[in-house]
């Protein structure tokens, strides 16, 4: 029966090409814009480390003085060097890493390459295993390298291709910021988005190309990027280790909810201890967001993107109302045909199913065209200069969603017109003919 309905739908759609085209185009435009904006939203609000993010936490404590204290205030978004190092060395979490971003000049040995600046990350050994950074050559540096301020560096595949033509460069020397450093590992392409571990350098920025132990970077005075909030006497770039400033990010891995609760307790305990020592002045004020919670708190998805998504749904709604109107016209015009079918024994249900099949077919065609429009739309998005632009690609789940949305929407749009058409009284309809 279904194939018969398909055949009927096909004939009917062909009979009225302009009207059919109008419906298909309206649905396609609605679907196309919706899928474009939804895909961007989906990519931007996605989980940067699926499967791992629930175990990663961002501890915050409040080391500021009482100036400007508010009881319900949030603690600073970063930690001081002293607290960062204390929490790092306490090793109360399963893994922990302290970090900040910067940029360094590289002086390549390779002929024909001018010196250039690249973004860098100064961090500690656990960074790599904690964030599951894949390696193609070598390995991360070890905790001892952090303590010894070793001249070691991890670079990315991209940089390795540029400097060493993709060869295994472990053990080779790279001149970073005027100092010779030994390459210990080459990380494979790895771009978590959002750039969750440091939102100061851009919510969707690319992964840095050079990784240096934090202690080494400080000793060599490598230049630092990102935000720095100070209070009291503050400090300068020279005295960051003792400054009353927060400028580093601490991430910890806690494998179970119980461990997370214990760690939060430990942070409270630490704050109280520091207050007793006179370093902290405020009452203990700690936060322990998990990765996705931290993304939400920082509202990483740009508001323009959210606005566009709502707008696209409004657009789809207008397209659907339009399609309902057109289908109503189309189905009611065929009242005669429906009357004949009813008189020949088709039940209301049969007619209803037939008309819905037709609506679904319009939806399918609209979905295919809408998909093409979405591909075009995403291509346009990728040409935008925003830092998230290059991420805008359609994935399998979004592809499926396109068709579900298109067919669902058009069947929904067909419900009212099909119902109205079924109400036709066969006798009356035949008589007026």
């Amino acid at each position, binding site marked *: 029966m279904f194939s018969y309905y398909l055949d009927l739908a096909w004939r009917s759609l062909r009979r009225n090409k302009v009207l059919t085209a109008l419906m298909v185009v309206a649905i396609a435009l609605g679907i196309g814009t919706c899928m474009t904006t939804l895909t961007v939203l989906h990519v931007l609000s996605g989980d940067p480390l699926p499967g791992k993010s629930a175990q990663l936490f961002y501890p915050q404590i409040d080391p500021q003085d009482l100036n400007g204290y508010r009881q319900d205030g949030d603690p600073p978004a970063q930690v001081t060097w002293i607290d960062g190092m204390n929490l790092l060395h306490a090793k109360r979490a399963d893994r922990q890493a302290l970090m900040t971003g910067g940029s360094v*000049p590289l002086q390549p040995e390779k002929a024909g390459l001018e010196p250039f*600046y690249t973004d860098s990350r100064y961090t500690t050994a656990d960074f790599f295993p904690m964030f599951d950074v894949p390696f193609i050559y070598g390995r991360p540096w070890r905790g001892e390298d952090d303590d010894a301020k070793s001249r070691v560096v991890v670079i990315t595949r991209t940089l390795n291709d540029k400097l060493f033509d993709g060869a295994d460069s472990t053990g080779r020397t790279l001149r970073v910021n005027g100092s010779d450093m030994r390459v210990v590992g080459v990380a494979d392409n790895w771009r978590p988005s959002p750039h969750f571990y440091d939102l100061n350098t851009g919510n969707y920025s690319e992964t840095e190309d050079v990784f240096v132990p934090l202690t080494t970077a400080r000793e060599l005075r490598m*230049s630092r990027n990102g935000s720095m909030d100070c209070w009291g006497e503050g400090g300068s770039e020279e005295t960051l280790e003792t400054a009353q400033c927060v400028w580093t990010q601490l991430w910890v891995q806690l494998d179970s909810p119980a461990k997370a609760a214990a760690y939060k307790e430990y942070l409270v305990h630490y704050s109280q201890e520091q207050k007793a020592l006179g370093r902290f002045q405020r009452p203990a004020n700690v936060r322990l967001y998990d990765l996705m919670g931290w993304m939400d708190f920082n509202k990483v998805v740009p508001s323009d993107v959210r606005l566009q998504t709502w707008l696209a749904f409004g657009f789809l709604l*207008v397209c659907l109302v339009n399609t309902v109107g*057109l289908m109503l016209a*189309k189905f009611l015009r065929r009242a005669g045909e429906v009357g004949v079918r009813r008189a020949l024994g088709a039940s209301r249900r049969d007619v209803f199913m037939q008309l819905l099949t037709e609506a679904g077919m319009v939806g399918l065609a609209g979905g295919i065209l809408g998909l093409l429009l979405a591909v075009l739309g995403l291509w346009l998005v990728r040409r*935008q*200069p925003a830092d998230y632009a290059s991420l805008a690609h359609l994935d399998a789940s979004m592809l499926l969603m396109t068709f579900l949305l298109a067919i669902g929407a058009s069947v929904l749009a067909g419900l009212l017109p099909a119902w109205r058409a079924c109400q036709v009284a066969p006798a009356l309809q035949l008589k007026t003919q």
Partner: protein
Amino acid sequence: MQIKPVLSALRRHKAGTLLIALQIALTLAIVCNALFIIQQRVSHLSRPTGLVESDLIAVQMRWVGSKTDFIPLIKTDLATLRSAPGIEDAYATNSFPLRNGGWSMGVRTNPDAKKSITQSTIYFTDEHALATMGVRLVEGKNFDAGDIHSLDPKTSIAMPKVIITQALAKKVFPEGSALGKTIYITQEGKPSTVIGIVEKLQVPWVGNWAAGFDDNSIMIPAIMNSDFLIYLVRTKPGQQDAVMKTVVAKLQAVNRMRVIPEKTGLRSFAEVRRNAYDSDRGMAIMMSIVCVVLLAITAAGIVGLTSFWVGQRRRQIGVRRALGATKNDILSYFLTENLLIGGAGVIVGVGLAIGMNMWMMAQFEMARLSVLYVFVGVVVLLLLGQGAVLAPAMRAARVPPVEATRSV
């Protein structure tokens, strides 16, 4: 034209009537708000900086190597640039308007005050800066060569003399002229005397967070000893392209130990402006496309449904024509019908538009929708409806009276 028969006919087409009205209402709501967003973005991105933006180039660079004293290098560069053919003037700075990155400091008139009066950006400049930027001095005088300091990044940036913008002067000294007065821009209480006031000089940021101090700028007479710096270069009229082709090579010839990044290293000011407002422009373009497509879809929907009605009513139209109605009567019947539906649609639509704007004000940083946009939207949609209905209505008017006697 009598409205009553139109209304009673519409009562027999409730679903279709409601759908068209609903579509008009939704379209009106979206189009009003979209137009409003477009206007906001366009007015945002066409704000003046205070600079004369033609024939202006920004060169952004960093020194590499083991040197730590960059001042002599910068001075040599500046001498080279200023004497180069095609170049009118140049100076070295830390930032410039629309760069989207720079320094901001709190400004106080009382060195002991904890809270600053307002925020202001800091631009390092020298005596060539005003001429290079094309910024107009409205009071006081420019720096002279003797005022320019070489500044170590570890020491205070508070200089004895500064030039500030009119906006900042008004904010800090609401009464009387700011000229000759003292301001404090750092914590250690070193005073700076205002020796000049410029008409307008925008801050480097275009985002919302700088909205409160858009034109608060302080020009500091100093060259910063830093590995990062920017040269702003004014070329002789019409020679911008020629200078852009050679300027990097010229600087490299003076000293190779520098990095001028490919994308952001060398930009004309037109490019700077384009980059700064990319997202605003993108949003405005997207909204315009949405408006046009929505209006087209709505028009197509009206054409489709009215055509159906005309087809359905051929016999009635024939009867009316046979009973003496003119072609114009038929035409105006359909126009009136559409106007009634459109009228109902826009009434609902105005409510929806305002509701949508209020929702956006709560969710996003959005201003209150001005009545003008609602009015424009209403007129556009009513005209669109009349335009869309014209073709089917004219087809209806051509129905011959003899149709009354035919059976379908």
